[in-house]
């Protein structure tokens, strides 16, 4: 009876002291999500302006987003995408200058060797905001290609 009692106490002590050192919660199997994050920029389909030109421009871009881009998937290597760049460009300048900026963007997008020219955003896209192309030197924010853009 006594030996059983001693064994019981030893077991109790060992269990109590060993319990504190258990780190299984810290080291146990982690469940990682392998889902590809949704990189497509949040679409804004609303028509915010009463201007006829703005209405036509937004209709064209909305149609492109709805019928082509969203179906095609996240394929544009740039951030913002070319269609979003067009919207940003026209909002920052005017429809004429914005169209020229858009044309230049399409030419740059066609260049197959642009790897080292742009910084990357967190999704791996080339960060290329419209504000750098307004021809206003003060607005240019140069970032080296080694830079990772975390907050756009």
């Amino acid at each position, binding site marked *: 009876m006594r030996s059983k009692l001693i064994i019981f106490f030893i077991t109790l002590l060992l269990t109590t002291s060993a319990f504190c050192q258990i780190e299984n919660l810290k080291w146990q199997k982690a469940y990682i999500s392998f889902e590809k994050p949704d990189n497509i920029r949040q679409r804004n389909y609303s028509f915010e302006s009463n201007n006829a030109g703005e209405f036509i421009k937004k209709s064209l871009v909305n149609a492109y987003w709805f019928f082509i881009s969203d179906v095609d998937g996240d394929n544009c290597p740039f951030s913002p995408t070319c269609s979003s760049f067009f919207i940003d460009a026209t909002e920052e300048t005017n429809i004429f200058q914005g169209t020229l900026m858009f044309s230049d963007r399409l030419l740059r997008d066609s260049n197959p060797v642009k790897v080292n020219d742009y910084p990357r955003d967190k999704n791996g896209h080339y960060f290329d905001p419209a504000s750098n192309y307004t*021809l206003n030197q003060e607005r240019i*924010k140069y970032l080296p290609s080694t830079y990772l853009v975390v907050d756009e």
Partner: protein
Amino acid sequence: MRKLLATLFLIPIIVSPQSTSFDFRSPQNIKLFADNLFCEGDYLRAVEEYQSIQNILRNDTINFKIMFSYSNLGLYQISNNSLQSIPGTSKFKCSADYLYLVNKFREDPKGLRVFHDMPLPPEIVERRQKLINISYFYDAEFNFDKNYILSPFNDEIDRQTVSLLYDLKTDPPYKSPALAGILSTVIPGSGKMYVGEWGDGITSLLLTGLFAFLAYDNFKADHSTRAWIFTGIGAFFYAGNIYGSVAAAQIFNARVDFEFSNGLKLFLDQENYFLPDYDFCN
């Protein structure tokens, strides 16, 4: 009996690691911990630990480390306020005075020049002059003689770096946006090649040339609808390539400015703002 012995043997082993007889929070131990944090570069927590024992140990090294830590954290005003805690007789007084100037420089490079006649020991005067000369690089108007700027720098590598920065400041390798635009008007894409964007330039030339050829070929074959469509696309890319060349030259110039300011910052970081070398961690 054996079981009893085994129990008695096990209990001290289990209880001993949980003993609280060791005073972890003694000032000496806090200092050791703070020194470790300081050497690891964790200045925020190091300064917190140093401040908890500052009034107990009354140590000049601790006071200087607090000042140094705040400076590295970018809290220059607080760092300079710590200068008062270092007495004139301290061996760190000279370094602390210079750190005060470095903090002023880091707050505003031009603001340092106010202290150009502050009485300091000769070795610190030379360091201050280096910082003052470097501060001129931050001015928009820069018309100093190269020899004057280089005069306080005796080390050959430093002289070469400052000389390079001087050349970049006085004659930055800017590209002309107007010339880039004109070149692309004459030969599509050549403006981009002029600013070093060879890939974009060749792409512009090929795409504009392709649509120009398609338009010409269709006009020649009397397919006027197709010809006009290709003309429109060609003109769209042609205009975009001229605009893009001007923008590319501006971005190139922004890159030159960025590389100059980045080079200046790297030089100052590498030289640690000409602060004396402290051997606190060995």
